[in-house]
């Protein structure tokens, strides 16, 4: 499995995702600039956290006009794997690959801490190494992470088991239904506010993020006709 980490102007967790795959898991991973037009040869694409385009206008709103975005969209359509954390999740919703939007935290403050999450769906390409109902701990670090969608959309997410992670205990940002991460209906696109890439080494305080990346590496790569 070959993995792309997209670098937008203002991305800053690109290094963290890259190193999780590269130095911790020894996977085949490359940085890809937002200026590129193609993701040919990659099996999965990671949209990192950070402040793409300074978070100006709305978080993730401007990144969706980058050159690379049509290729990301194509990956999703082809059934390849697309993952966004934090700003990456915001970009996925702004692109329309995932429903809803991320609002400013109810506290109106940026919050960086480790939170408890419940694994709600262990049947996705990113969560097969977790157990449904398992409580894990991952760091969050965001100012705009309050998940919002209209009630009908939320109901659809619940009905189709698209809520993948939920905050357990305290809800740190006011997300509806305690939603921390969701996937598309096909299960090949995952967006989440918490940072699994920050929880892959004992030295740094925990490894609960590792199974997410290991689950992805377990997947069969998807070949499209063009390849």
């Amino acid at each position, binding site marked *: 499995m070959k993995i792309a980490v997209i670098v937008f*102007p*203002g*991305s*800053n*967790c690109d*290094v*963290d995702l890259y*190193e*999780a795959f590269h*130095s911790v898991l020894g996977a085949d991973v490359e940085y890809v600039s937002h*200026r590129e037009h193609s993701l040919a040869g990659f099996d999965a694409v990671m949209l990192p*956290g*950070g*402040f793409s*385009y*300074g*978070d*100006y206008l709305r978080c993730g709103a401007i990144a969706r006009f980058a050159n690379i975005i049509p290729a990301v969209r194509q990956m999703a359509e082809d059934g390849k794997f697309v993952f966004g954390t934090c700003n990456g999740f915001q970009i996925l919703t702004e692109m329309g690959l995932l429903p809803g939007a991320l609002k400013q935290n109810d506290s109106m*403050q*940026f*919050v*960086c*801490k480790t939170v408890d999450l419940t694994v709600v769906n262990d049947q996705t390409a990113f969560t097969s190494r977790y157990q449904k109902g398992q409580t894990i701990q991952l*760091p969050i*670090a965001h*100012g705009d992470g309050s998940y919002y969608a209209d009630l009908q959309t939320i109901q659809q997410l619940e009905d189709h088991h698209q809520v993948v992670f939920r905050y357990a205990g305290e809800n740190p940002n006011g997300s509806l239904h305690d939603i921390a991460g969701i996937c598309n209906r096909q299960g090949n696109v995952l967006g989440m506010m918490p*940072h699994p*890439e*920050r929880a*892959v*080494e004992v*030295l*740094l305080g925990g490894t609960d993020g590792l199974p997410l990346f290991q689950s992805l590496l377990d997947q069969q790569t998807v070949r499209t006709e063009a390849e």
Partner: protein
Amino acid sequence: MEQAMTPEEIKEQRPYLDWSLTEHEYNYIADSLLHRLPNYTETGLFAAMWSEHCSYKKSKPVLRLFPNSGPRVLQGPGEGAGVVDIDDGQAVVFKAESHNHPTTVEPYQGAATGVGGILRDIFSMGARPIASLDSLHFGEIKDDATMRYKAEQTVKGVGDYGNCMGIPTIGGETTFDPCYAGNILLNAFSLGIMDQADMKRGNASGVGNAVMYVGAKTGRDGIHGATFASKDFSAEHATQRSAVQVGDPFMEKLLMEACLEVIRQHPYWLVGIQDMGAAGIVSSSAEMASEGKSGMDLNLDLVPQREPGMSAYEIMLSESQERMLLCVEKGHEKDVQQIFAKYELEAVVIGRITAGGQYVLHHDGQIVCDIPVHTLVDDVLEEPSAEKRPVRLSEATPAPVPVVTDALATLKQILQQPTVASARYFTQQYDSQVRTSTVVGPGSDAGVLRVRGTEKGLAMTTDGNGRFVYLDPYVGGIRAVAEAAANIVAAGAEPLAITDCLNYGDPNDPEIFWELHHSVKGMADACRELETPVVSGNVSLYNENNGQAIHPTSMVGMVGLIHDIQRVVTIKAANAGDRVYLLGKIGDDFAGSEVQKMLDGDISGTLSPVDIKEVHAHLKDLLAAEQAGLVNSAHDISEGGLGACLSEVLFGTGLGMDLNFGKMSTAQLFAEPANCFVITVAPENQQEIEQRLGDWAQLAGEVTADGRLKVALSNQELVADVSELETLYEEAIPCLMKSKA
């Protein structure tokens, strides 16, 4: 229009007095340096470059007391930041800088641009910034909604800038005292890492080489920031309060990536690089030319400008943020432009290096400045200062012993003092983990990072206790350095070097200059003994509001090296059954303590002397024990004394302690002595630790599993539920910040 003033009119009307240039200086410039009258633009440039902020003309004689060299020092003061060898061909680059006045005026932007400025200092040396710390000193937030707002906005400014840049803020300190009510202190520290081969300096040389301007456009913001920072801060200067700049961290992130790409991948294109900080283009260009012993010829019409109709004077003195000046080898201008274009940034040639040492500026087809570079940078008149021991220090007075009857009640109260209480409300607004190398984040003695790809770690801390320096400048100066060293050693790191921010009142007051002099002497003596030279720093004077000076606050930022990151030591107790030791003797060290302030409402008394040689020997012994893996936790005693220290060791662990301190009085549980620690040690290492640390270590008891803190004192026993203490400690600041009173 003012700019039309002729040299003769300037001489006559003396507008330079408003820019903090004295008549004596003006006459010296005209008579002895230029042998003619300076024109309007030139006078403005002199005023900025000869300000205390740029020239240190007042503090220089005192700063010479600091040791600046050592076996690991690759670059001392005088550049963007200090550079220290951390083995394996790597180096750390660090500096702290104050942004007190802008933060007081406009907390959000003042704090944000403070962080932005220090980060540029780091990456201009060729290093990638990997951590920030912030030393924040506010007025009391209880019953003061304005100060709460300012604290909230300051923290948000620090957070928004650092978070957007993707540089973790891993520690610092937040204190509250009435003396900062009219003058907040924001001292921003940043550390970067690089291969020693990548080091760059602010140097401009090589006749014909290009002077290139990169980054944001120049506007009228922040003109006179340097002279602004060199003036008293009273209500009558309220009109000057528009001088604050606005930060754009996104622009800075792009600027950083572009600069690092040029520096690291194309070192031969680049002669030198410097941040445009205080006094904007003039200070960066003149300092670079001075360093390179060159002349410089700049055309200001080429400077990218955000507003039309700016005068030469305004262009040169603007403190618009996120700009850098590069000296580029002739012929590589286009190459550099291409790199910057990749990041959607403009890079513009605005001039050339010349022979002969003249600093020449063209604007609108005229030569608006033609003076020798050295007159701006090297010929500044040092200003001798009168000094006098403050009346309050005329005789030594022992601190009164506070009356503490109920140890538990006092402990609970101490843990809720904003200076002692958990700062999590503030620090969790900082991304402390981005770049995934943070081993110990905010809330410990020192922040700790691992150095990716090596076994090394870096510990760093910022410490400034204005109360101690106020009560005893010399011993307070020693203690500032000793406290920082204690924090570094507590983490299991070897102290390497320091940076500092010296925050004082008006140095023209002989008593304040005496404080500056004697506290620096104390710091210097401590640095010399502890072998931690001063590699960078800054001086912030005139921290006054309506004639009321802050406590003299000497902030020390220290960096330490952990040779094996697996041996990092945290402040948290690890296992029930571990032995608990008190290192050091606690006496009646109440002068300037939190308990004194809390119970007496004010601080008083003389500090106990500190034997810095003994401190050094102890720190070496403790570090060796940590490196041998004998110490499971270590925390130094600081604000709130032993009582707060023990609580912090237990918070979050679920553990308790059963301790007996024999003859210690109840009040002494809250004394704040120098060089004291609480460590925990596995039972099997008890003998070896006692052998290594000798009399310094006193066995006090052991860690228990029951979550209760039991402390036997000379006349009472304290028994506390640790989780109850923790709730008080955690809730104090959120409760204050959210109060409506």
